[in-house]
């Protein structure tokens, strides 16, 4: 067949074109979106907007690195700086001295192994691109009364990585119990195709430099949001729940090609909002109505027996024009209906929150099939708490927002539930400290921090990794002296920094000046290079 040669030739087309057509970046035609009356959650929309504004106002803030980037500036993957400790109350009468130590022991080589396709164990040298940041404070009470305050220590992260990166806190060498407070999404949204996309909000856009964190945190509103209760989802919704009854043995059904469920709905988009869960896609049928589609699981599918498929209606009820199963090749609408399964439908009314809990709980079940890292979300927050963060996200950016990001305009709740676990945030550990009158105590924090990274490198050096700290951002403490140090540096070289470190001259500890931001860019010394 001659077309095979064209098909083969298409495989090798320019990667820029392939990238341009990536699934998540295909532009959707804008559709009016029905908004749920009276459900604005302005208190944190404003804060998140700050992040977005920051990206627009700061020169070069969204450049994302590149060969001309200045060291210590923006990164393609920015882990965020080490933030200073702060307090919820006024701490007049207390003086703080701070030392931040960057411990590079994770960069030491260690052996790892994997089993190759022949079943042989392969051993190789590996190392972690992390530093242990010990941000310690000597606190002196200069008054003649005991002073108790709630200490708050911030760190940047997300649900999936937080558990392994929560700072460990000690007071006078003893580990103390802390409470975790989680802030909203710290980034914004960006066009799918760079500047020409204008104000499009199709892609997530995480913070890439410390200046952007400055804009996010300096007013203190973000911390307030992190400490506040998440919004509830008590609005009534109508739910259409779809199920599948298999009419033939599964070994026969497993042989059927492309069995899909099609739900054809008829509604007035000005009067009803339709959110969906468990669907793979949606298209306009020939009559212009929306048809939602999803696969029907086979016995080997991970979601077999667990699939939940919902249409969630806010506002006026909708008409389910048709619910059917089709199978075979070709466009959905041309495929013949199959009687291998029977589609069942149940209509019920509930609150959005209760339904969401059901969905999140189900997602947690799915997490069991994911990686260990994903499973840690379950250890970090309960399903109830996760629903709260989903609600917060829905009000700020999703389908319940007055100005939803285009990224969520399809109404797929699965996307939001999953996204909440991925997006970057600033989190806080809080703990209570009492400093006796006239005495001094030590507060120790220890955090594993991954390097910030710019793949293209800066200047002549590739493979540079960044670590940084801020001296004043977000703190109300009276910090009278700040020092910084580096330790376990045998496996790294410091290529650029503004701390004043010089490993060759043995300068590993420095007194910090008036800068708001101190940074270093390091490189791993690889075998044979040192």
């Amino acid at each position, binding site marked *: 067949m001659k077309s*095979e040669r064209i098909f083969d030739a298409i495989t090798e087309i320019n990667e820029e074109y392939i990238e341009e057509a990536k699934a998540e970046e295909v*532009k959707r035609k804008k559709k009016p979106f029905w908004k749920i009356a009276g459900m604005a959650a302005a208190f944190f929309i404003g804060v998140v907007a700050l992040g977005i504004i920051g990206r627009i106002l700061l020169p070069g803030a969204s450049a994302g690195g590149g060969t001309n980037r200045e060291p210590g500036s923006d990164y393609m993957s920015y882990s965020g700086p080490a933030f200073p400790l702060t307090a919820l109350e006024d701490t007049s009468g207390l003086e703080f001295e701070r030392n931040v130590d960057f411990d590079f022991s994770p960069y030491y080589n260690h052996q790892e192994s994997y089993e190759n396709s022949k079943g042989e164990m392969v051993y190789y040298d590996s190392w972690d691109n992390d530093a242990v940041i010990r941000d310690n404070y000597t606190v002196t009470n200069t008054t003649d009364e005991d002073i108790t305050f709630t200490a708050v220590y911030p760190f940047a992260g997300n649900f999936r990585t937080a558990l392994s990166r929560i700072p460990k806190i000690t007071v006078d060498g003893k580990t103390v119990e802390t409470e975790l407070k989680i802030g909203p999404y710290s980034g914004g949204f960006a066009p799918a195709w760079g500047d020409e996309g204008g104000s499009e909000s199709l892609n997530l856009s995480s913070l890439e430099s410390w200046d952007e964190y400055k804009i996010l945190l300096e007013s203190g509103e973000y911390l307030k949001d992190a400490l506040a209760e998440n919004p509830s989802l008590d609005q009534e919704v109508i739910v259409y729940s779809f199920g599948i009854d298999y009419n033939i043995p599964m070994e026969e059904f497993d042989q059927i090609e492309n069995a899909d469920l099609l739900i054809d709905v008829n509604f007035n988009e000005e009067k009803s909002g339709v959110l969906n869960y468990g669907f793979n896609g949606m298209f306009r049928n020939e009559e212009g109505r929306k048809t939602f589609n999803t696969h029907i699981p086979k016995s080997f599918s991970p979601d077999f027996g667990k699939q939940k498929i919902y249409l969630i209606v806010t506002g006026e009820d909708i008409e389910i024009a048709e619910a059917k199963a089709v199978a075979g090749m070709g*466009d959905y609408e041309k495929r013949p209906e199959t009687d291998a399964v029977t589609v069942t439908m149940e209509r019920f009314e509930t609150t959005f929150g209760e339904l969401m809990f059901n969905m999140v709980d189900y997602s947690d079940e799915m997490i069991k099939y994911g990686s260990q890292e994903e499973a840690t979300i379950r250890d970090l927050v309960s399903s109830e708490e996760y629903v709260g963060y989903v609600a917060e996200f829905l009000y700020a950016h999703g389908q319940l927002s007055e100005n939803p990001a285009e990224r969520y305009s399809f109404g797929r709740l699965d996307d939001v539930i999953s996204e909440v676990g991925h997006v970057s945030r600033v989190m806080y550990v809080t703990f209570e400290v009492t400093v006796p009158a006239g005495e001094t105590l030590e507060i120790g924090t220890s955090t594993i921090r991954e390097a910030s990274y710019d793949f293209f490198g800066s200047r002549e050096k590739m493979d540079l990794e960044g670590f940084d700290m801020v001296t004043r951002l977000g703190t109300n403490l009276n910090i009278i002296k700040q020092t910084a140090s580096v330790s376990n540096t045998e496996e790294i070289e410091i290529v650029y920094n503004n701390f004043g470190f010089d490993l060759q001259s043995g300068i590993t500890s420095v007194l910090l000046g008036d800068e708001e931001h101190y940074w270093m860019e390091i490189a791993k010394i690889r075998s044979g290079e040192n």
Partner: protein
Amino acid sequence: MEDAKIIELYYARNESAIAETERKFGKMLFSIAMNVLSNPEDSEETVNDTYGKAWNSIPPQKPDFLGAWLGKITRNLSISRWRKNKAQKRSGIEIMLSELEDCVPSVENTEEESESGEITSAINRWLGTLEKEERIYFIRRYWYGDSVAELSARTNIPAKKLSSKMFRLRKSLKEFLEKEGISV
């Protein structure tokens, strides 16, 4: 995780590179394979083979576009596997091939077939002449293997309208290849 960070993990020979690749691109690669093979087991194996090839190729390679680079590997592996089991029923690739028959140029007085690289170059030039939206539709259909229905759902353009757009694009490619003297 950013593509660059994943590539860095490959360079560090850190096995989480595979897990991160799977997390970010697994679904896309599986759908590319399924669109050619129409068989979940074969597709899964093909995707796993893709990870193996990536592990063996990075370093020294540093793909500019990791997703597209992985997708090419999956697509090539899928086509090879499809050619090996020709006894299959009408699968996704056969539908695409039958549509692409519309693009086969009828060039007179050409005895030799053009090299595959020449055909690719010509297709790249033709893609460059298209409006971005049309280029994306073509690549989604014939590179990623999206069905017209899937593409319709993704773009909110009725399937019928998309089908006729695809038909016009195939004709346009045929004319372009003919003008360029390409023979297949």
